[in-house]
């Protein structure tokens, strides 16, 4: 259930929401992560794209329908998935930018990558917007997926 705060939104309180988000991600509390987001929060994992013969599936949509399944799949395939927040900057409009290293050891298939027990650690840039109700209403992330594939031993681009 979405948590609504009575605190005013400031740069500091918006950053605190995002800090809590990554704390919950580190604890694999996917429901808790979702609780920090508004019911219709936008989601975009820019590097996620799967090219089929007739269409391309992208990591764009809503937190509840695209983000949550992706996070659940990640912690399933990488049971020790963790994150290290390198920096968080924010403003009073609710924009929060976070540099975060994500890492984990693969135990199950992830996309086209067969499990080989290898570990990856890759820098990510997350762009959040936190609404006046101190709920995240937008998440976007950028990273180099080729770096993850290569660290996991997958040398084919597709």
């Amino acid at each position, binding site marked *: 259930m979405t948590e609504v705060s009575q605190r005013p939104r400031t740069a500091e309180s918006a950053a605190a929401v995002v800090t809590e988000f990554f704390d919950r991600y580190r604890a694999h509390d996917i429901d808790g992560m979702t609780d920090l987001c508004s019911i219709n929060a936008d989601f975009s994992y*820019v*590097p996620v794209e799967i090219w089929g013969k007739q269409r391309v599936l992208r990591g764009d949509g809503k937190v509840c329908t695209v983000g949550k399944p992706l996070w659940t799949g990640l912690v399933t395939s990488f049971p020790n998935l963790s994150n290290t927040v390198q920096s968080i*900057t924010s403003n009073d409009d609710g924009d929060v930018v976070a540099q975060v290293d994500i890492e984990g050891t693969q135990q199950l298939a992830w996309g086209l990558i067969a499990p080989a027990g290898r570990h990856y650690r890759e820098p990510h840039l997350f*762009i959040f917007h936190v609404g006046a109700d101190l709920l995240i209403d937008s998440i976007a992330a950028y*990273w180099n*997926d*080729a*770096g993850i594939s290569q660290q996991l031993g997958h*040398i084919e*681009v597709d």
Partner: protein
Amino acid sequence: MTSPVLTRTPTQTVQAFLDAFARHDIDAAVALADPQVTVTVHPLGVREHGAGELRKILADLVRGFPDLMITVSRVITTGDVVTALFKAEGTQAAGYAGAINQEKHLDIDQAWRFVTRGGLITEVTAYWCQAQLYRRLAVKRYDEIAIA
């Protein structure tokens, strides 16, 4: 009299950089960076210091994609940090990042995070997905990037 450099806001500094980059004016873009700017380009494995490194990153892109078009969708200012989200598009005309020229079209969404001080850029960190880039340039394997 106050130097115009010192009176530039972080947003103005980065916007001027993006404008210069978009018109392929590498000299003007690099002039907005501190001589000891920290340059990190994760997809290229670059972690260096110096305006010369920044010049190389920008020049390689323009040389590889002479019709490079930069379309900025958002500029987010959080204190001295400015994050620019943009799409880079172009047609390959020379080797880039190990990929031979097959005249493929590139379109890559990117995020560049800038730190500014005193009207100059002191840190640049670029994020994009090299898998998307190689996919568009028809590279099949990471261990055979130069083989079509």
